[in-house]
């Protein structure tokens, strides 16, 4: 099993959720993060003091999937989150040693 971590633009969240459901993925975990990268933010000005925001609001999606669908999941995220504009974000894939569903105690792929 793999843990896919995707950093994407916030307004893409709903689309992504639906796209992944299409793959039969029934759960995912989301958190608000700030991203630093090539994309530059707008400037805030307060009484003459200018702050260019280097850290832009992004959404981090964490989703555990079984090896069979990792590829497709990554593709779907890439195509759905893509706007072609700088700042679209990244997808990271990590190995999962174990998964447990707390409610039932199921482990492994059945726990997803």
């Amino acid at each position, binding site marked *: 099993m793999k843990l896919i971590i995707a950093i994407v633009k916030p307004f893409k969240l709903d689309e992504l959720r639906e796209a992944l459901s299409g793959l039969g993925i029934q759960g995912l975990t989301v958190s608000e993060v700030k991203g630093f990268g090539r994309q530059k933010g707008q400037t805030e000005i307060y*009484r*003459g003091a200018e*702050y260019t925001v280097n850290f832009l609001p992004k959404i981090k999606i964490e989703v555990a999937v079984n090896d069979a669908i990792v590829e497709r999941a990554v593709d779907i995220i890439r195509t759905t989150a893509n706007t072609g504009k700088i700042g679209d974000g990244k997808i990271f894939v990590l190995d999962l040693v174990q998964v447990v569903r707390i409610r039932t105690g199921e482990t492994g792929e059945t726990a997803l």
Partner: protein
Amino acid sequence: MKQMIRKASHLAASAGAATLLLCSQAWAETTETVTEIVTEVTGSDAAAQAVVALDKADTAWVLTSTALVLLMTIPGLALFYAGMVRKKNIIATMMQCFGITAIATVVWGVIGYSLAFTPGNAYIGDLSRLFLNGLSMAEDNLFLGSTTIPESVGMMFQMTFAIITPALIVGAFADRFKFSALLLFITAWLILVYAPIAHWVWAPTGFLAGAGVLDFAGGTVVHINAGIAGLVGCLVVGKRKGYGTDNMSPSNLAYALIGASLLWVGWFGFNAGSALSAGPRAGMAMLATQMATGGAVLAWMFAEWIVRKKPSGLGAASGAVAGLVAITPAAGFVAPMGGLFIGLAAGVICFWASTILKHKLGYDDSLDVWGVHGVGGIVGAILTGVFAVKDIGGVSGMLEGNSGQVLLQAEGVLITLVWGGVVSFILYKVVDALVGLRVTPEEEREGLDISLHGEVIHN
């Protein structure tokens, strides 16, 4: 100029002495003349001048105005300031305003009021109202310099001024001042700086009033006074840790906009209430206030729009306060369009002072107490001398040929700056020696909310 400073320091000395000795015996020089001049220029309708008798309508309006002016400090100013600081200092900033409200109430009741609003001499009042002793319900126990409102009402109205003035100062050294030091400083400042200056300008016997300096609702007493105390304060205390490098953007401008709004509304009590009467004078004062504020918002907004490409909410709020400050001394003396012009001028000048000049000079007046209240107050004081209209406040300004008034106004400004600046500086140093003015770097980084007050905003 030189001479002026000499004169000022002389006054400083004597007033200082007077204050410290707290000499209660009324001085020989009882000043018929002074009183006359003053009565002419103080804010209550010509109509009312004739008889001296309690007027319940005037009383109703001043009671209302008192509530409006308290609203300016809590929650008005507290929110205006809290919205501009970082989240970790929101409670502490509001607490400074709230704590000052309490301490100023007691100090004013115990001694401040007596020093300011009793005849005394030209430089300081007497102690006849120490602990408000002698203030009664008698129908004829009226407020000094008013012919129609009870002393209790006039005293309360003035108390709200004695509350907001010190509260204005705290913006200059936000995020780094010890709460204990603040309480000590404010107590002394009210007695040694605020009370005397209020006496000079508003007591019929005060020497600035006698000289004919115009300050309808407190441009000098309140705003220039707070402005200079703030400027000196932020210089003595030093810059915020990380100033210029860290991101110190305002935590919540919604708070700042609510605060500015409440200041605007409450200012109707501040300015129109200073007519101490519910007649045309109050109406004119309110109208001039509104025109000035509207103008100042637009002026600051468009100036910023041009210079920075975007009109900001903080800019609009700042413009409003700048306009309100500038019209304060002028309200009861100028016509509505004179008010509009004063507002436009204040908006542009304070924008420049707070967003350009300050950065050039590099001092850290965190919330621009000097840039808005100091500078705005000076603009207003001077322009009052320009736009004053005889038919409205009984005194002509430069536009009506009385160019001497502008000099008089400048004199008032200068004397206030000197006395306020010098004594405030001394007081900061004394308090610093006693308890220290500034929190530790650690406390400053943690935020004053948790380190000074043991509290945190959780959402």
